[in-house]
């Protein structure tokens, strides 16, 4: 197993009577892109802030890069964009980054490097207050990448970006991941997470409901087979797959819980039993489907616990 870059143990944050984060234990491995998902107010940003040492946990602990979260030597190895970019409005984008670079003792060439990476070099001399939301967001990502950190924490990095900007940001994260960069990506855009994340953690009402690979979370694919006669097809498919893995879905269509690669075998099997095969399609559950299913059931179970 790859080295753990982030490991939290029962991380909890309480504000008065409100439990913002409730015993979250999550792990992020070196070199992976970890998607951190949850509805608004679920506790994602609070968890990330605790990892960065911006707020102290009420209980539990977080270890980042093998050391307690919040230590300056750890924070120096993390690049973070948390809940929107915070910069000096009167400074240019470049001067903002120069300021942040000086905190790390970095040369101005590093500023130029990250400006190029987020495609802001042309507007780097403009004042931050004149930037569009998308440009501000890109500058925030640039600041996070200063000094080539070991861990990149990006909280909603595509907020405010136009479709082209979102595609660029996605490509940037993918290229970073390909270069071995560990990334924690909090995002509402599930298609984006599905596309670029290796593993995800789903947090609802402060609790980590599930942590798994994207594929596991989505579940296996289902083959939808339209064949006649339906009863004969059902019997044939039940012999091929587990009895419980086959069900009718109406319109002479049967659903078989088999991977997409099994489609040729299924067709051959049915034809061998003199069954007419009209259509075979692969039905895959999207991350969005899995997420909504999980968050709605998670909220319901949290309410049951509360009541």
């Amino acid at each position: 197993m790859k080295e753990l870059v982030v490991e939290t143990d029962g991380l909890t944050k309480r504000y008065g009577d409100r439990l913002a984060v409730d015993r979250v234990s999550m792990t992020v491995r070196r070199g992976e892109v970890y998607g951190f998902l949850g509805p608004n107010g679920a506790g994602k940003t609070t968890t990330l802030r605790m990892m960065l040492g911006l707020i102290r946990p009420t209980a539990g602990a977080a270890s980042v890069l093998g050391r307690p979260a919040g230590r300056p030597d750890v924070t120096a190895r993390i690049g973070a964009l948390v809940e929107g970019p915070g910069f000096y409005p009167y400074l240019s984008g470049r001067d903002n980054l120069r300021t942040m670079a000086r905190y790390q003792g970095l040369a101005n060439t590093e500023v130029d490097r990250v400006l190029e990476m987020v495609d802001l070099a042309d507007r780097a001399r403009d004042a931050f207050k004149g930037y569009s939301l998308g440009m501000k967001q890109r500058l925030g990502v640039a600041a996070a990448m200063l000094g080539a950190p070991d861990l990149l924490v990006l909280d909603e990095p595509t907020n405010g970006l136009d479709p082209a900007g979102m595609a660029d940001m996605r490509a940037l994260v993918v290229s970073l991941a390909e270069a071995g960069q560990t990334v924690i990506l909090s995002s509402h855009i599930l298609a984006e997470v599905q596309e670029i994340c290796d593993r995800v953690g789903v947090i609802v009402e402060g609790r980590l409901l599930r942590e798994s690979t994207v594929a596991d979370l989505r579940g296996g694919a289902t083959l939808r087979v339209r064949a006649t006669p339906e009863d004969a097809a059902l019997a044939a498919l039940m012999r091929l797959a587990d009895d419980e893995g086959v069900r009718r879905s109406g319109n002479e269509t049967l659903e078989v819980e088999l991977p997409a690669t099994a489609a040729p075998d299924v067709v051959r099997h049915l034809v061998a039993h003199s069954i007419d095969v009209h259509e075979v399609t692969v039905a895959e559950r999207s991350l969005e489907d899995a997420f909504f299913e999980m968050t709605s059931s998670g909220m319901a179970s949290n309410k049951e616990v509360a009541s």
Partner: protein
Amino acid sequence: MSVKAMVGSTAAELLRLRKWSAIWVIVGAWLALSLSFGYVFNYVSYKTGDDNFAGDGASDAQLLAELMPSAIPDILVSGLPMFGGALAMVVGALVAGNGFGWGTWKTVFTQGPSRSAAVGGSLAAVTVFMFAMMTATLVLCAGVSVAIAAAEGQPITMPALTDLAQSFGAGFLVLEMWALLGFLVGVLAKGPALAVGLGLVWSLVVENLLRGVGSLLSGVETVTDALPGTAGGSLAGAIIGGPNGTPGVLDAISGERALVTVAAYVLVAAVAAVVVMRRRDLA
């Protein structure tokens, strides 16, 4: 807190402060006020023979003497207890308080320096600016007084270096005290607006009212003698040689006690700002 981190933080803060027009507006306002109240009004009064608010009853010879280079130590500190301190407080409150609204403290703390180093760097940068403000005031006073002496055909007699150093040091300490108190209030209020408002009302109004009450009630006077305005005003008064009619210049406490009190406020404000920022959640 490593020296390297502190140096880096100070360099970062100096870069962003020197490019902040609001800071230069305040420095410009201070220099304009120093020039106006230190030289322009008195010189106009001297030339026209009209009384002004500070030179009420002063002879022409006295007025001219106050405009000469030898009077630089007095002029250097006379404006500090009133508007100099208030402007320094605004600088401190803006530097610390805006970081919350803009979210820049959050960004800075995720760049790697310890909170102590980051806040220490900010305090150091404010200190450098207060020193620069005092230096600019000295240069302005020297230039204007020499020009007036030349224009009036008076001998150019510079003050003793020890007097000048004492005045500069006292003035710098008074500015530093108010700037760091403003910084602390900006940290506590998590924003500049409340800090600037409360700070100005306190330094310009509340302390004066309390001193008025204190002159009637000895118990209150004990408290007012320990307040920053009293300490700053008395330190300036000790340099000038007692109240000269300039608002805020006092002789409520001795120069030595005033120096210790001002220095104590500088230290307490700096330490308190660092401690609060180290312990605070940045939500």
